[in-house]
């Protein structure tokens, strides 16, 4: 006979809220970093210089062909090693949050670079040609003509990827970072009320992501109407 005790959620509200803040922080930083570096990676991949495009393509394909959770583990353990190599500091100087952020930015930038690349390639070639014909260089043509149009086309896909990213932040649980899921888990272990807490986590994720997906759909409809 199952008996639920939802009171635990209220009791642990502070640590759950802290966990949610950690999740949101990680999400926001990973999203911004992912889009920024993803755009640079996409530009590098499409650049007319092999020395730039080949390594970028290699990085993206490597990251995309390993499971996300593996990449997190990797960068989680690699980041402190690399940092201590460069700074001479002890590896522990880099906290789990920073390592997780680095891991997420690395992985998300690979995913976002594919979205940005597709967006850039969706722009007819005549557009950059017209920009070049005016005397704009590669970067100006990208920055003023191609990317603004590409981002507009990409917006729905980028937001969908952001929803997935938000869900994926719960993966940091594996590196013992106390995010939302981690906080719930901890509370569950302490009280033995793990089922209630996991249901709560699921409901919160569902509501947030459902609202976000809904917003994306509406945006998509509006963009389509604005054509």
């Amino acid at each position, binding site marked *: 006979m199952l008996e639920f005790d939802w009171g635990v959620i209220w009791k642990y509200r502070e640590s759950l809220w802290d966990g949610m803040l950690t999740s949101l922080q990680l999400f926001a930083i990973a999203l911004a970093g992912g889009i920024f570096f993803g755009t640079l990676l996409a530009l590098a991949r499409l650049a007319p210089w092999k020395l730039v495009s080949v390594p970028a393509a290699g990085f993206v394909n490597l990251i995309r062909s390993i499971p996300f959770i593996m990449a997190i583990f990797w960068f989680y353990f690699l980041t402190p090693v690399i940092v201590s190599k460069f700074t001479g500091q002890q590896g522990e100087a880099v906290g789990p949050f920073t390592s997780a952020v680095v891991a997420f930015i690395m992985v998300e930038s690979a995913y976002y670079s594919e979205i940005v690349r597709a967006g850039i390639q969706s722009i007819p070639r005549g557009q950059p040609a017209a920009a070049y014909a*005016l005397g704009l260089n590669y970067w100006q043509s990208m920055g003023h003509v191609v990317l603004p149009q590409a981002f507009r086309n990409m917006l729905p896909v980028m937001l969908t990827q952001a929803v997935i990213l938000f869900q994926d932040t719960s993966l940091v649980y594996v590196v013992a970072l106390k995010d939302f899921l981690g906080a719930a888990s901890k509370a569950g272990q302490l009280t033995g009320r793990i089922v209630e807490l996991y249901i709560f986590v699921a409901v919160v994720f569902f509501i947030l992501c459902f609202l976000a997906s809904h917003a994306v759909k509406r945006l998509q409809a509006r963009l389509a109407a604005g054509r």
Partner: protein
Amino acid sequence: MPMIELRNVSKWYGSFQVLDDCTTSVGKGEVVVVCGPSGSGKSTLIKAVNGLEPFQKGEIVVNGVSVGDPKTDLPKLRAHIGMVFQNFELFPHMSITRNLTLGQVKVLGRSQEEAEAKGMKLLDRVGLLSQKDKFPGQLSGGQQQRVAIARALSMDPIAMLFDEPTSALDPEMINEVLDVMVELAREGMTMMVVTHEMGFARKVAHRVVFMDHGQIVEDCTKDEFFGSVRSERAQTFLSKILHH
């Protein structure tokens, strides 16, 4: 010295030769019409002139600058060669005003006010000043192409290249664009124009270049071309396009 000079230009896509030993020139103030069947290499040829299409053999010199030379500052060269495309290629996410000022500000380093004053003058000249705050998508094809011409002119070009500027237009809009081009030609602009509008060629062209299979088959004065066309291929082509 001609403004635009092409010497033995050849280009291949893999083993397919798009341009075959093309030699021609456009003098200062001269209007040269380039015509020929679809796929004969007209677009490739005209885009080679401002370095939008690289080529493997030969030489192209514009205003004394070699286009194919790796040391040439292509953006700088292109800034002074206007180009008008078949599909207008206005920037759809920018207002007409921004379309007209972007190159002036970013490339020529003009101030926003200066660029706008220049842009509005040219917009007025093509009869579209009232459209300055609209976006390209709100204009008809003919209007967009006139804006595109104004945009090219805003850079104070030493020569203008046109790649089939009227072939994407509905018939009733062709003349409004041709009128602007005729006026430009009469003012003495150096022009290289890919077009099948033989009326335009008769009116203002000095020379006509006829291309087929990547080769320049005819390169003669307008009167020679319309009078006694020498090659059979050009003859067939002319009879085809003059009949529709």
